[in-house]
C-alpha cells in the first residue's frame, strides 16, 4: 500500500475519480438548485440571462426557419451550463444524473462479475475433474461469444418485456438488466485467471497439509485459498470498472442499456447524435466525461497492479 501511496499518477487518478463520484452524487442537489427537471420535457422553459428572457427552445434561424433549436451552452452554472437537449432538458443536470447511473451500473456489474467469477474459478480450480471440465467449457462458450452480440440478444429478449423468473420480476426499464447483462458477459475475463491461480494453490504445501489434516473443503477454500486470490481480485476492480463503464455507455448508445427518460452517459451521447452538427456539446460533454473517468480508473488500476501484483499479466482494454 505504501508503494501505491507513493505513485503520484495513481493517487491523482484516484482523487480525480473520487471528485467525479461526488459530483455525480450531488446531481439531485444541482438539479434542485438550478430549478430544472432533468427527466421531463420542458420545451417552453424560459431562462434569464443578463436580465433578458431567453426561451430554452429557440426558433430555428437556418433554412426555412421552421422547427426549434435547443439553447446552446450558456457557460453559466445553474442555467443550462451545457445547453439543452432536443426536449429542452438541462444537459448539465442530465450529465450528473447520467454519470450516477453509469457509475452505479459499472460498479454493480463489477461486483456481479467478481462474485460469480470467483465462485466459478474457485470451484473449477479446487475440485478439478468433472466440475472443472464442465465449468471451463461453459467459460469457453461465454468467452467466444462476441460481447455486443450476446448483449443484444439478451436485451432484445429481456428489455422489451421485462423478465419474470419465479417470484422475481424485473421491469423493462430497470437498471438491473444492464447490470446483469454486463456482469455476465465478462465473467470469463476474471474466472480464468482465478481458476489458474487456484490450480497452483491447490498443489501448494499448506493446502495439501490442510487437506491431509482433514480440514473440510469449504474451510480450506475460505481460509486458505480465497485470501491468496484476493490480491488478483482487488487488482481487477478498477480495470473491470473501466471496461464496464465503456460497455455500459456502448449498450446505452445502442438503446439497449439505460432506458429513457432515465439517463446515462451513453444515452446522452445518443440524444446528442441528432444535434451533433448544431449543438455538439450535448454529445461531446458526456463523451469527455467517459474518457476522463475511464482514464482515471485505468491509471489507478495500473498503479494498483504495479503495487500489489507487479508480475501479474492482468490487462483489460478489449471490448
Amino acid at each position: 500500500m505504501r508503494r501505491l501511496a507513493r505513485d503520484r499518477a495513481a493517487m491523482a487518478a484516484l482523487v480525480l475519480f473520487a471528485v467525479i463520484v461526488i459530483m455525480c452524487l450531488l446531481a439531485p442537489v444541482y438539479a434542485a438548485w438550478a430549478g430544472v427537471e432533468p427527466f421531463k420535457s420542458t420545451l417552453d422553459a424560459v431562462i434569464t440571462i443578463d436580465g433578458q428572457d431567453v426561451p430554452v427552445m429557440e426558433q430555428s434561424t437556418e433554412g426555412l426557419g421552421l422547427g426549434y433549436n435547443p439553447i446552446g451552452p450558456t457557460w453559466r452554472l445553474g442555467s443550462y451550463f451545457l445547453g439543452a437537449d432536443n426536449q429542452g432538458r438541462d444537459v448539465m443536470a442530465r450529465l450528473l444524473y447520467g454519470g450516477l447511473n453509469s457509475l452505479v451500473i459499472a460498479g454493480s456489474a463489477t461486483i456481479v462479475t467478481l462474485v460469480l467469477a470467483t465462485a466459478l474459478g474457485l470451484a473449477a480450480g479446487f475440485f478439478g475433474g468433472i466440475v472443472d471440465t464442465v465449468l471451463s467449457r461453459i467459460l469457453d462458450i461465454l468467452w467466444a461469444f462476441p460481447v455486443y452480440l450476446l448483449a443484444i440478444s439478451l436485451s432484445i429478449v429481456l428489455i422489451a418485456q421485462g423478465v419474470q423468473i419465479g417470484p422475481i420480476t424485473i421491469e423493462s426499464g430497470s437498471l438491473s438488466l444492464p447490470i446483469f447483462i454486463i456482469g455476465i458477459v465478462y465473467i470469463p475475463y476474471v474466472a480464468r485467471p482465478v481458476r489458474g491461480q487456484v490450480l497452483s494453490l491447490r498443489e501448494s504445501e499448506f493446502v495439501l497439509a490442510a487437506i491431509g489434516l482433514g480440514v473440510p473443503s469449504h474451510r480450506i477454500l475460505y481460509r486458505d485459498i480465497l485470501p491468496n486470490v484476493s490480491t488478483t481480485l482487488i487488482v481487477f476492480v478498477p480495470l473491470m470498472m473501466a471496461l464496464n463503464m465503456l460497455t455500459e455507455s456502448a449498450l446505452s448508445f445502442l438503446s439497449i442499456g439505460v432506458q429513457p427518460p432515465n439517463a446515462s452517459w451513453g444515452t446522452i451521447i445518443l440524444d446528442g447524435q441528432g444535434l451533433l452538427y448544431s449543438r455538439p456539446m450535448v454529445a461531446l460533454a458526456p463523451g469527455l466525461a467517459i474518457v476522463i473517468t475511464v482514464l482515471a480508473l485505468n491509471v489507478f488500476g495500473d498503479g494498483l497492479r504495479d503495487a500489489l501484483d507487479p508480475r501479474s499479466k492482468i490487462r483489460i482494454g478489449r471490448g
Partner: protein
Amino acid sequence: MIFALLRRFGQMIFVMFGISVLVFLIFFATPGADPAARIAGRNASPEILEAVRKSFGFDQPIYVQYLTMMKKIFITGDLTSFVNRGWKVVPAVLDTVPVTLSLVIGAAVLWVVFGLLIGVAAAAARGTWLDKLLMVLGLIGISMPVYWLGEVMNLVSQSRYHDTWMFSWVPPLGYKTFSTDPKGWFLTLVIPWITLSILYIGLYGRVLRAAIIESLQEDYIRTARAKGLSETRILLRHALRTSLISFATLFGLDFGALVGGSALLTEVVFGLQGVGKLTYDALLNLDLPIIMATVMYASFFVVMANALVDIVYILLDPRVRTG
C-alpha cells in the same frame, strides 16, 4: 502434434454447439414470454403468429425446435424475416460481410503498423519522456468510447472543418463498393479506419512495449550483449521477435472478434451497412430472425478464428508441437 490438433478441433466443435444451444435458449426458451410473438415483431396479426408457430415448429418437442432453427440457418438457409415479410435472412447477412471485412482489414493494417512503431519506440526509449508520452496517449486511446470518437470525427470532418483543405476530400457517410468505385471505397473508409484502429493502436503499443521490456531481461539478451551486438540489433532481431508471439495471438483474437460483430459501433456511427449495422437495424425493428442469424454466424466465425490462432501456434511452437 496430431493429437493436439484433434483436441483443439474437438473443442471448437463443442464450443460451437454450446453457443448454438445458448442462442436457441435465449430466443426460444426465455421464461415469461411467447417466442412466436417476439419473432413476429410488433403488432403482428394472428395469421402471422400462426405462420411463425408453424414455421419454427413450436408445437413440437424442444429438440425438434432446436434442429429446425439450425436447419433454417445453416442448411436450407430459408430463414425469413416476419417484420419485412418474405425477406430472406441468410443472403442478407452474407451481403454485409464485404463491408465489415473492408472496415476491419483496413483498420487492422493501421493498428499493426502503428502498434509496432509505438511499442518499439517506447521500449527503445524506456524511462524517457517519449516513452511516458506514448504510453499516456495509448491509455487515452484505450479509454475512449469508439462510437463517441466516431461522432467527433464526423463533427470535424463532415461539418465543422469540412470546407477547409484538410477535410474537403471526405465524402458523405455511406459505403461504396470496391469493384465499382475503388477511389470512393477508399475515401469513405479512411476516417472509419482511423477511428476503429485508435483503441487497438493504444492497446497493442502498450502490450508490445511491456513484452519487449520483459524479454530484454532474458538470458539470451545478455548473451547477445556479450557478443557485442548493437543495441538496435538486439532490440529488433532478438527482443522484438519473441514479443511478436503475444502480439500475433492478440491480433488473431481481436481480428476475429471485430469481424464477428465488435465493429458494430463503428459501423453504426459511420452508416456502413456491415454485419453489425444489420444487427443494429434489426434490433431497432425487433426483427429477431436477423439477429439469430448474425449472432450465430458471427460467433461461429469468432470460434473458428480463435481455433485457427491456436492451430497456427501448435504448428509453429516446437514446445507445443512435441508436447
